[in-house]
């Protein structure tokens, strides 16, 4: 007797193919989000907000209602949608360029207001879509198109640690950083994304999950080496973990 243990999520378009580079972490996260939307049965009650960067083409991949935002402003668009339709599941899908570089103000203020939305922020430590320039989260020493000899903090400053910063916002209910550098970490990431979704579905509050994801093309690494790079280098600077969970704090 054969049983189906995994199926491509319904929420992904039947004929839709991810248009990312080979080995890109975006596809893993987008698929996990789709799985969760299926699992919670909220496809017909979800509005996704796309952002500027590789994160932009949500309507090409998802059978979901999608609103677009200007660069960095997805949390504001999400605020307008959620305040208009409080019963809907509203999430932003952003990169580190969008959420943490140009849009850090919106990220921090939306968290502080405690908007009942969910932000999933793909941190691959560079501006992927424009070809790999340094972003707010680029590691010290990391070579990018605009830090050709490696990020020199004396010259261009230090990386921003987003999850830690967002967790400091009083309005945030759940803040975590996960990575997708191994099957085990992908499993863990899904569990944490599920918690983030629950924070909104149960009406508890704002949730933010930063995902350390691969960008093999701009890192100049193979997909497999990119996963190792997350584990060996990025996680040292941007450590994974749950930085805030008000449901646990209350339980204590």
């Amino acid at each position: 007797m054969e049983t189906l243990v995994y199926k491509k999520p319904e929420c992904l378009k039947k004929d839709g193919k991810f248009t990312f580079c080979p080995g890109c972490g975006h596809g893993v996260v987008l698929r996990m989000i789709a799985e969760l939307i299926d699992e919670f049965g909220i496809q017909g009650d979800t509005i996704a907000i796309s952002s500027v960067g590789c994160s932009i083409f949500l309507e090409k991949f998802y059978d979901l209602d999608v609103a677009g935002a200007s660069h960095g402003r997805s949390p504001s668009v999400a605020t307008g949608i959620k305040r208009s339709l409080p019963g809907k599941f509203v999430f932003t899908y952003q990169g580190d360029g969008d959420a943490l570089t140009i849009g850090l103000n919106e990220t921090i203020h939306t968290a502080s207001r405690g908007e009942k939305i969910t932000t999933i922020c793909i941190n691959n430590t560079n501006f992927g879509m424009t070809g790999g320039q340094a972003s707010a989260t680029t590691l010290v020493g990391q070579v990018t198109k605009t830090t050709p000899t490696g990020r020199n903090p004396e010259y261009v400053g230090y990386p921003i640690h987003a999850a830690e910063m967002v967790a400091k916002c009083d309005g945030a209910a759940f803040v975590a950083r996960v990575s997708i550098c191994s099957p085990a970490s992908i499993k863990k990431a899904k569990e944490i994304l599920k918690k983030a979704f629950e924070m909104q579905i149960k009406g508890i509050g704002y949730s933010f999950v930063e995902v350390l994801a691969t960008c093999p093309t701009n890192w100049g690494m193979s997909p497999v080496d990119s996963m190792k790079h997350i584990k060996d280098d990025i996680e040292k600077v941007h450590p994974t973990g749950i930085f805030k969970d008000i449901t646990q704090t209350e339980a204590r």
Partner: protein
Amino acid sequence: MIKTSSKVLVKGNEAIAQAALNAGCKCYFGYPITPQSEIGEFMSRKMPELGRTFVPAESELASISMVIGAGTTGTKAMTSSSSCGIALMQEALSAMVCAEVPGVIISVMRGGPGLGNIAPAQGDYFQAVKGGGNGDYKVVVLAPATVQEAVNLTYRAFHLSMKYRTPVILLADGILGQMMEPVEFGEYPYEEIDTSAWALSGAKNRKPRFLVSLHMQEGEMEAITNRIFEKHDLIAKNETTYEAYQTEDADLIITAFGTVARVAKAAVKKAREKGMKAGLFRPVTLVPFPDEALHNAAKSAKMVLDIEMNKGQMLVDVRSAVFGAAPVEFYGRPAGGLITLEDIYGQIEKRLG
């Protein structure tokens, strides 16, 4: 709440805010800036009382994006700001036009350029009418001259915004925002627009929808832009509004918008009393601009005199509309320099006296 059943004395900014409430504005998002802060203050008191949304945004970038969010769901939403704040919204306005998202933007002009001053001015005609956003796009721009008209045009701004799925700017200046006048609010005079065919609500029992402004397929963006401009042709056909005061036999037609136009009207009256044939042509919709009506009016005039509280901005559209039918001259003062009845009368007298 302002009593809206009878004539009341009310400040322009608060009148606009009350009109927005009457129009069914469900969400207000804004960031303070003089000379329009009373709008946000009013909304912060009234919206919670009505069970509606007031969010003090972290910037004008955020507030217009919140308007976009609400607009994508077919919800009536509004923001208000002034000059430098409206400058920050330009990128989003372009995106809004492209994605066909409704929303109302109240722009109460201050003096510029730069941070300028908080004096009344009309230096943001270009900003509203031509726009500082990217690409080929147009928004609808309405220019009230009195507090009563600000109320009427606020109603109309919501109506046009929902009807044509476009941002609509109500372009006022600091005089109008700060001045008190008697106003009759009446009820929102327009029918509610059905948004169910396009608004985002979650793709339940229907195909998913997307309201975005990136279209990378070959020819896609060109087709969308053409469609948006066809829509503007329709708006021009249906919605162009102006006031023509004693233009039929006028030797000199003054063109002016907003509060300057009411000063000009008084100057025209005075000139007529002295036997000088002056008239006033006042565009109420700056976009769509009443080109044809102005051109026809100018045909029988000896000259057109454009008067603005700036260095000559509507002048560009006036010249384009008049298109040789009569010579066009200009008088203006920028950056908070007030134009008085005597100034305008003097300009008329210089030419007709």
